[in-house]
């Protein structure tokens, strides 16, 4: 590396070191200490925090989080892919407009967007009122503080990522490929399954990993829409640091979570790399 490029990279490196590497290293170090009897930290080396992560109680919360995040991911991918497909199939000049509306929620605050769902799903919220208006007369349905509410919130918040990630390969797909498939005798459904879907899979994978990684570590949505009844890892970590005052255990949980995320992101990066790597074209004599 020349001194010049080192100089240019310095701010970015400093930023990464100060805000990513150092805090992560601190949290990692924390995970190897013992919790003090009255909270605080006792500086003796131990592995029992990691042992506790594997305790069925906590492992169960991990699995539960993965299940909720997985469900949100599947739903977001189905809706997001369908939306991206519809946008890519609309007239060229309207596509930027539709995309703009798809990402519009991003311009508002995450908390506000989540509170909006509370207003909608409340006991006498807008959804219940709508049902009443349609003639429903029974007890108001329990919508808020359910797993469904948490999943709805996660899907809603991360849907734009999926739309954008799927739109990119869909809009680049040569429409003549689908026509060629039809021409060779395939039905519309077979054409989708064998041509369109495989060629846009990298976009789906990118969107899915994004939603899953962001969902599994989320603690705001489960706290607000799940009403604290649905413990996800994010909430557990939050509790360890701010309520239970067990920082070492919270740190160990964080590390486990980060490990899962890194693994997924790495796998996705590898898959994307493999999909986009182009073999050098060989010009043989024809």
């Amino acid at each position: 590396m020349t001194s010049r490029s080192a100089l240019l990279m310095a701010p970015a490196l400093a930023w990464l070191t100060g805000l990513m590497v150092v805090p992560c290293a601190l949290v990692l170090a924390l995970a190897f200490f013992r919790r003090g009897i009255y909270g605080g930290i006792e500086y003796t080396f131990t592995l029992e925090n990691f042992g506790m992560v594997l305790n069925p109680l906590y492992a169960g919360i991990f699995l539960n989080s993965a299940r909720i995040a997985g469900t949100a991911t599947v739903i977001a991918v189905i809706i997001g892919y369908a939306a991206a497909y519809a946008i890519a199939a609309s007239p060229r000049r309207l596509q930027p407009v539709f995309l703009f509306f798809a990402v519009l929620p991003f311009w508002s605050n995450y908390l506000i967007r989540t509170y909006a769902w509370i207003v909608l799903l409340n006991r006498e919220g807008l959804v219940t009122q709508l049902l009443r208006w349609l003639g429903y007369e029974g007890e108001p349905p329990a919508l808020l503080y359910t797993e469904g509410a948490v999943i709805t919130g996660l899907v809603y918040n991360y849907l734009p990522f999926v739309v954008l990630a799927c739109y990119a390969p869909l809009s680049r797909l040569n429409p003549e490929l689908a026509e060629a498939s039809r021409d060779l005798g395939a039905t519309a459904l077979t054409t989708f399954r064998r041509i369109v879907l495989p060629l846009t899979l990298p976009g789906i994978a990118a969107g899915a990993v994004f939603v899953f990684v962001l969902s599994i570590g989320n603690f705001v949505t489960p706290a607000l829409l799940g009403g604290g009844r649905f413990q996800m890892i994010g909430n557990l970590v939050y509790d360890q640091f701010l309520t239970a005052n067990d920082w070492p255990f919270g740190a160990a949980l964080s590390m486990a979570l980060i490990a899962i995320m890194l693994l997924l992101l790495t796998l996705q990066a590898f898959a994307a790399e493999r999909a986009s790597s182009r073999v050098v074209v060989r010009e043989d004599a024809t």
Partner: protein
Amino acid sequence: MKTLLSIDAVSKNFGRVVAIDDVSLAIRENEFFALLGPSGCGKTTLLRMLAGFETPSGGKILLDGKDISNVPPNRRPVNLMFQSYALFPHMTVRANIAYGLEMERLPAEKIRGRVDEMLATTQLAALADRKPEQLSGGQRQRVALARALVKRPRLLLLDEPLGALDKKLRATMQIELKRLQHEVGITFVIVTHDQEEALVMADRMAVLRDGRLLQCDTPHEVYERPADRFVADFIGVMNFCQGRLDASGVGMPDGSCIRGRLPEGAAAGASATAAVRPERILLRPTGDVDNRAAGTVEALAYHGLDLQLHLRTDLSERPFLVRVTADAADRQPLAVGDRVEIGWSAADTRIFKD
């Protein structure tokens, strides 16, 4: 020969754009048919209607006497080779070719057999396991052809199949395509904007302009007896002299007359154009010729086999083109600035009403 495909008064418009305007054509069994016309004249639109990707705004398309205008593309015994080839990038050459047969739900070993056979016919066997991105332009073109041919369609449509290839490869592939068509015995309809390509390959050809059919005949007839001035200009090289019709030909502004066969319903005095091909013009004619003129050599273009003479005359604004064989040029050397006499017969003169 039996008619395979009838295009019966077909029109197609996209909003206000009329892409195909009342075209009627009959394509015969086992024929190599070319659709020729300048870019934007509606060739691709017509082909897409035959393949089933567009429905005609008017008229009917009949295959073996049955109206197929509203049959979807996957149920037509017709295959299209796309201008962009449209090979499936995530599949190998073999999988691309097998795809169409899998859609017919043929047994696996039968598919294998027919794919192998087609790989051999198109000399692709060595490349069977490559992906399209690992192939050269010419190889991709052969895969696209193989993928369509392996279905054994009643009709194969080819949209500018050689457009993406360089000139030399194109000449080879023209002969190759014609050989292949003969071998497989399938009717080919090929679209091209290259008149030379149509002349070389086609049994019969149709010339289109602005969505309308101008002429449909054998290449020889279209070349020798073009239906109108546009066709005459579009196919090959032609010299035009504009004037007014009189009793025996076209009267020139300078008072001379170019003799030729008068078009039907010719009214004396009407504006008309006389046309003659460069290869029909004699240099320094001896004896009796119907039409004579003189001009100054403006340029000489050497083409290997022959020499193209650009002659400044009083007959037209554009220089007169005269083809001289290399042999004749050797016998009578020419130089820029020379004054030469030319002549040609009335039988070789076409006259078009303007």
